[in-house]
């Protein structure tokens, strides 16, 4: 199946897709509602999108939303698929997909640490990379790394000549 047929196939077999966009000839993205994320991902896994390349998130602070991104790849069709969903920024939570892909546990732990997203069903919330972190999750847009560094390490002073 090429990309056009694949988009048709997904559109015909899965209800509730909000938006499909082709990025280039080997890559396209689809947007779904937060409640449908497990359904769409298990449907896609059964449709030969077997590799979960990455789970990540984007903080859209002006829209008060966080975008959760799942990047899949199909070895059969050689297509990269970006699945997106939007969640509330104040109480970010989404269902975990660790039962679909075991590797999602670590990706979700990573995203939880850097964006503060609660993955329901994934109880592994131990710090992975940031040990003893007390500030807000650092990849959120309202976290100012310069201010943080100034308070922790003191203001940068130029050496006197």
């Amino acid at each position: 199946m090429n990309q056009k047929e694949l988009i048709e196939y997904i559109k015909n077999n899965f209800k509730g897709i909000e938006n499909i966009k082709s990025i280039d000839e080997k890559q396209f993205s689809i947007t779904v509602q937060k409640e449908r994320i497990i359904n769409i991902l298990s449907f896609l896994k059964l449709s030969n999108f077997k590799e979960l390349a990455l789970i990540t998130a984007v903080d859209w602070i002006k829209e008060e939303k966080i975008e959760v991104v799942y990047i899949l790849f199909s070895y059969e069709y050689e297509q990269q698929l970006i699945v997106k969903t939007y969640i509330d920024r104040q109480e970010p939570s989404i269902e975990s997909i660790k039962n679909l892909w075991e590797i999602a546990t670590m990706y979700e732990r990573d995203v939880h640490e850097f964006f503060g997203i609660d993955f329901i069903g994934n109880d592994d919330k131990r710090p992975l990379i940031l040990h003893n972190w007390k500030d807000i999750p650092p990849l959120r847009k309202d976290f100012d790394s310069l201010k943080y560094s100034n308070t922790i390490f003191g203001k940068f002073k130029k050496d006197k000549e």
Partner: protein
Amino acid sequence: MSEILTYLGKDEEYEVYELFFGPNHPGMSGNFSYILTVDGHTIKKVSPDPGLLHRGFEKLVERRLWLQNIALIPRICVPEPDINEMVYSTAIEKLCHIDVPLRASYIRTIVLEMARLSAFLFGFGGIGGTTGLYTASYWSISDRDYLLDLFEWLTGARVYHMYILPGGVRRDLPNGWTEKLKETIDYLQKRLNEYDRLIYNNPLVIKRLKGLGKIEKELAIEYGITGPNLKATGVKYDIRKMVPYAAYDKIDFDIPSQNEGDGLARAIQRREEFQLSLDIIRKALKDIPDGPVRANMPNPLKFKVPKGEVYVKIESARGEHAYYIVSDGGDKPYRMAVRGGSYTAGLILAQKVLVGCRIEDVALWMATMDICPPDFDR
């Protein structure tokens, strides 16, 4: 013994201890650690402990202009930095619809293959060092220096080159550089026979590597293993061939693959890909056309990238190295997520495969899987 190790309890036969494998272990590659629960010499549980190398690149790029980041991102990966510049530049070119001149694509191909060769040479040394054949690591690091000399001549820097820019490359090949590269390639070709005798035909290495950390095809795909490790299980998939970037679609080459999926197959796969890289450089040097090396680009200080998102991946020495880049139409990247080649292998597969192995196998397993901590601790 009990001062070094944490005593955890007793099972039927043995006492169980916790062992910190790294960050100061000589067999560990980089600032990373596995906390092993050991029962005698056998590993019962593995928990990876990254975080010692975290530099916050994903946050830092959000504060800098699109072109300022070129100086920052090669620092993500030490053994093979050029892949970062390539992924980043390709992402910008895809978002802005910039066409790269053909000569620049060929130069990029040559530079990327040279970086791959130097990463593989690091890997040869890793296998040598962890099996006790220190000669291999001395040889490969000194051979890598010939490539670094060429990089210094071409780009002015030995390790972090900042040579591949959006729209092309920074400068054309200097006079006499191509001839010197050909000499180095011929030299490395000759040395490969020596490496065969030293490592790949060595009964000691074969005995240690055979059956080590064997993974099946389905498990590898399920766990997101890519690159040489996936090819060693029999999946003939290479991003250079299937989703071509740079000038790989204009160069004719075949992808080697193995079937066994164990440590020996992975080591041999890397050796075969070393040969492939030498061949690709030779073919690229033969076909390289004349012409400009950089497309016309706007003022770097006022450079804005149209709104959009793109996932760009390339084949690194460790597998799929990719960025997910989001632009909001501004002069800085809105979000950049890094997916390193050995993320899943080092953090997740290790917890499954290393259970039941012996302590001395951990370093060797890491060398054959080419685990690189900056991939997940970026």
